[in-house]
């Protein structure tokens, strides 16, 4: 390729605080239209903004995860413009003094680490939802005023893959810190891409296009890849790239023109006079960080270093915040990390996929799973038996031990009990002893089969085998 893609991402994260950024109305998702509003959200004259502490705490946590400098004073500005979804005719945001500045996020691409620089991070408020009909647009003010975090990267992303990894990591941070659901499909994570091309080695930036309304992380990558190709084709043909706002058409897998970009809008920013500057004490910031739920990176380090899980196993658990939470809870009841990880990644995952459920709705609590794993490890039941108990646990609240007994599935691991059976079977099969001493291995298999038959398959196979061979050697 002749051209270097220069990509910057603007990400909006919708916070799931209980109340809105400046209004006390409840933050709801999927509520009936206009049932989550207070006078401020309707921009009734005389209403005033009051800053939500939890929104600030959330923002501090994300700033820290992105290694940003945190401004010790909060100042807000008005961004003035008219639009159908903007009740006040302005949005309260942070233009001049964003709470976070000059941070970064390291991503792994093709085995290399790349540092994506983040220019700024600030708080602002969301707009109304619009439902478009054929003959009009309906306004729902429920969403108006929900807290948003805006994260603006520097344009040092170079490919669709890098962009995807960047967004994935940000998603992980906001999900694990409990700041947001972080789902592009639901609109709680939004990503706008600014992309231009320039010849390698040239410092001057090319004309950039904006891509909006992306509804999945996969589409972020695809849209960027298409757009790089599109712009490259133009430039190679000597056709200049025009400043445009485009969207990604999933069906046709291409970016499509939405509108030509006109002159930059003048938002006439000025300091919000209804919010006096808020001082963030060191104590407040420290407390916000100390009480932050553990992020994925920290969990991964713990999984690998303390529990000895592999990179792959750790990553698998961490793909879903609820899954890792389940694992963490189970680990409180058993130290068998690898075994737990396997059962979660394979058996539980299999079940959830089949039933189209999430682990939040999974009927076996972490504690009971841990008990099951412990039984396997101690040899009380075999893996095969465990799977049957597992099935039973899906529809019963009983402890695994109880269910195993009910199913008659307790594995016999008691040495003396096993020896008793071994003696019986060996005594009854003297020819096998002879065969064994003559070097015929299948004698062992035959005897084990007999032992299994006699015990209904309940003996611990490994232990039985060991004891049998010892016994045969004695004879």
């Amino acid at each position, binding site marked *: 390729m002749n051209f270097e893609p220069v990509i910057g991402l603007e990400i909006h994260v919708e916070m799931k*605080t*209980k*109340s809105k950024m400046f209004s*006390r*109305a*409840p*933050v709801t998702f999927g509520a*009936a*239209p*206009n*049932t*989550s*509003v*207070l*006078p401020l959200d*309707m921009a009734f004259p005389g209403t005033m903004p*009051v*800053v*939500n*502490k*939890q*929104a*600030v705490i959330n923002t501090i946590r994300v700033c820290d995860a992105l290694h940003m400098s945190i401004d010790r*004073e909060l100042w807000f500005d008005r961004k003035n413009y*008219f639009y*159908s*979804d903007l009740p006040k005719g302005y949005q309260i945001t942070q233009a001049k003094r964003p709470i976070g500045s000059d941070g970064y996020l390291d991503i792994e691409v093709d085995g290399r680490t790349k540092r994506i620089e983040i220019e700024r991070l600030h708080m602002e408020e969301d707009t109304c939802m*619009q*439902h*478009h*009909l*054929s*003959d*009009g*647009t*309906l*306004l*729902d*003010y429920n969403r108006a005023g929900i807290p948003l975090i805006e994260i603006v990267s520097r344009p040092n992303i170079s490919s669709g893959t890098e962009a995807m990894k960047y967004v994935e990591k940000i998603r992980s941070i906001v999900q694990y810190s409990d700041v947001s659901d972080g789902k592009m499909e639901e609109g709680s994570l939004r990503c706008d891409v600014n992309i231009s091309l320039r010849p390698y080695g040239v410092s001057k930036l090319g004309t950039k296009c904006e891509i909006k309304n992306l509804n999945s992380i996969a589409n972020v990558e695809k849209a960027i890849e298409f757009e790089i190709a599109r712009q490259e084709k133009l430039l190679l043909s000597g056709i200049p790239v025009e400043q445009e706002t485009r969207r990604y058409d999933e069906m046709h897998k291409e970016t499509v023109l*939405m*509108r030509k970009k006109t002159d930059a809008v003048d938002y006439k920013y*000025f*300091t919000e*006079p209804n919010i*006096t*500057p*808020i*001082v*963030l*004490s060191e104590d*407040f910031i420290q407390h916000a960080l100390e009480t932050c739920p553990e992020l994925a990176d920290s969990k991964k380090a713990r999984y690998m270093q303390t529990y000895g899980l592999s990179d792959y196993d750790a990553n698998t658990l961490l793909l879903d915040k609820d899954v890792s939470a389940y694992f963490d809870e189970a680990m409180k009841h058993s130290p068998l990390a690898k075994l737990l990880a396997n059962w979660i990644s394979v058996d539980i995952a299999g079940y959830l996929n089949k039933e189209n459920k999430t682990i939040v709705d999974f009927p076996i609590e972490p504690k009971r799973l841990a008990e099951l794993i412990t039984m396997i490890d101690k040899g009380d039941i075999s893996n095969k038996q465990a799977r049957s108990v597992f099935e039973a646990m899906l529809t019963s609240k009983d402890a695994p031990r109880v269910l195993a007994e009910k199913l008659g599935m307790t594995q016999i691991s008691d040495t003396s009990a096993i020896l008793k059976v071994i003696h019986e079977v060996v005594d009854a099969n003297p020819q096998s002893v002879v065969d064994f001493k003559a070097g015929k291995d299948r004698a062992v298999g035959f005897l084990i089969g007999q032992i299994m038959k006699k015990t209904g398959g309940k003996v611990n196979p490994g232990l039985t085998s060991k004891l049998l061979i010892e016994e045969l050697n004695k004879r």
Partner: protein
Amino acid sequence: MKEINKNVLKDAAHRLLFDMTEEQYDVLEKEFTVLVKQMDLIGTIEGIDDYQPMTFPFEVSTSYMRDDIPDTPLPREVALANAKDVVDGQIKLPKVVG
């Protein structure tokens, strides 16, 4: 500073989503002439640009932030009582494009 003429004033008014009569634009243009002279007085104050812009009447900062406890929302009829075009519990506008 942007030059002041009727077109600039008309454009400014339109961006604020209203229009005025021609006579009013004339009045405004005259008002601006006086106003600009008055505003120029500010520029003659020695060292004025060494001052920091002041938004609030005095240095006032706070550490207060609201606890994240939601209030009971307005009943929908109350929230929309003053809106004149309501359909399906939502305010209706001409179809928004772009």
